[in-house]
């Protein structure tokens, strides 16, 4: 049964990569391959926790993947492994044939998290320019202006983070993640700390930004609605040890807008995935 499921996941990954490749025409360089990835954390006194257990997943170039699952199911750990912030205990992760650490050295990753992580002493402009400075590259002034405009903050170029609202800070954070034109965009609950209304608007915003230049993206979120709205495929992870319980392709047409959320197709997918999420939560042993 388990191996069947993995075959299905592989197959789906393959199919959808084919589709995306046909649409995008190139981009085969951004493939992310996760093979038998596991993560075991050693606690004190010889205790261990299996955070992620045997995840196989192929992500096509230019594809948007959303990882959902109950709290503590290892989705953030999986994301951190792709970002090179954690090392898998078993298995391997390849991004365009390279390990995450090799990608890091070439500045191929962009990351935005729930905590915006902006430098409080830098203006919005300088925060977006920071990746250039960190990489020792000359700051591409046009690119920084373009990104500020893209996230709709051209008027706030000189504002310090403390002068910006929560949503604005997250927009700067996403613009910063995009600064070096990363091959892979890694988003860990970027809007998790925002209120429901702002969050919905930000999702719409992110969808628009992403559609302008589809970048291979992995998003971790608690919100099924967010996942369905943004992703090409939604991966549902079961609780500890985390494994992929379901991979659902989202066939909603792009570009999507707030109206998309009103369609029957959207509602059906939402209902299906919510039910599946409830099921994995319920079947999990009490913690």
């Amino acid at each position, binding site marked *: 049964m388990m191996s069947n499921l993995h075959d299905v996941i592989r197959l789906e990954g393959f199919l959808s990569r084919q589709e995306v490749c046909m649409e995008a025409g190139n981009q085969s360089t951004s493939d992310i391959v996760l093979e038998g990835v596991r993560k075991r954390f050693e606690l004190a006194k010889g205790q261990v926790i299996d955070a992620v257990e045997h995840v196989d997943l192929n992500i096509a170039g230019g594809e948007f993947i959303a990882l959902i699952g109950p709290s503590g199911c290892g989705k953030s750990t999986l994301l951190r492994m792709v970002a090179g*912030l954690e090392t898998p205990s078993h298995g391997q992760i390849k991004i365009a044939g390279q390990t995450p650490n090799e990608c*890091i050295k070439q500045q191929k990753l962009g990351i935005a998290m729930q905590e*915006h992580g902006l*430098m409080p002493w830098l203006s919005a402009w300088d925060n977006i320019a*920071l990746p250039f400075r*960190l990489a*020792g590259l000359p700051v591409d002034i046009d690119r920084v202006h373009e990104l500020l405009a893209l996230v709709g903050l051209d008027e706030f170029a000189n504002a310090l983070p403390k002068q910006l609202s929560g949503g604005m800070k997250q927009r700067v954070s996403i613009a910063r993640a995009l600064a070096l034109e990363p091959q892979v965009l*890694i988003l860990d609950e970027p809007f998790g700390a925002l209120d429901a209304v702002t969050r919905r608007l930000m999702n719409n915003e992110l969808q628009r930004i992403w559609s302008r230049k589809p970048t291979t993206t992995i998003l971790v979120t608690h919100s099924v609605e967010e996942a369905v709205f943004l992703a090409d495929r939604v991966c549902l992870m079961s609780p500890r040890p985390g494994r992929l319980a379901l991979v659902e392709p989202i066939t909603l047409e792009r570009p999507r807008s707030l109206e998309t959320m009103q369609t029957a197709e959207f509602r059906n997918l939402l209902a299906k995935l919510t039910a599946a999420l409830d099921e994995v939560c319920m079947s999990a042993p009490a913690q």
Partner: protein
Amino acid sequence: MYVGTCPVNFISEALKWVVGLGMLFVLWEVAGQQSWLGKALPPLSSIVSYAMEPRSYELLMRSASITASNALYGFLIGSIVGWAIACSGQIWPPMKKGLDTLSTFVNAIPLIALGPLLIVTVGEQSTPMATAALAVFFTVFVAVLGGFERVPSVHDDVIRTYGVTRWRALCFIEFPNALPSLIDGLKLGASSAVLGAILGEWFGAPAGLGVLIVSAMQNFQINLLWSAAFLGTAMSGIGFFVLALLQQKLLPRLGW
């Protein structure tokens, strides 16, 4: 704590100071007049009138300016060294442990014990500066290290996902994060520097408030002793105040 620039606020703040100090001075004057603590605590008015006499005034000012310059140079040297050592541990992590141990060790040696050694090595003239520097160095070192400890983990993630070199991480992320902590350390260091300089002058410097204090002690010149002590305190206070002002005005502008 940021105090607003509203004048009413400022005046009420100043008023509290004036009232508090005024009460202390009155109590002192009465205690001196009534000789509650014998000859060791003369009335405040007699100390002030002594200090204002041209001869003693000139002596006090000359000594104070020497101590001030010793304290200032010592403060600068000590802060720069403390800061540089903390930063180098950040750039070469393997060195960090050794530098921590060395600094703790240096700090554990009482300045009193180092005094004679300094006289022999750097000379009487420079000893006050050296003791001031030693007194400041550890405070600043610990403050900067503490600042590095407080770099938020999400900033560490930025450093790692962008594959940032140690040097750039220090310049662009870690050091700016440690700045508020550094200023805190400098604030504490300001009074340590004055204390260190006066202590260094005890070991036989040619001039300075420390020299004045030792000679006043030996000759039982109570008024001179108190005048010198006041000047030393005022100096520490000014240093602290200037840095506190810097903290209040500069940090919010820098985004903190």
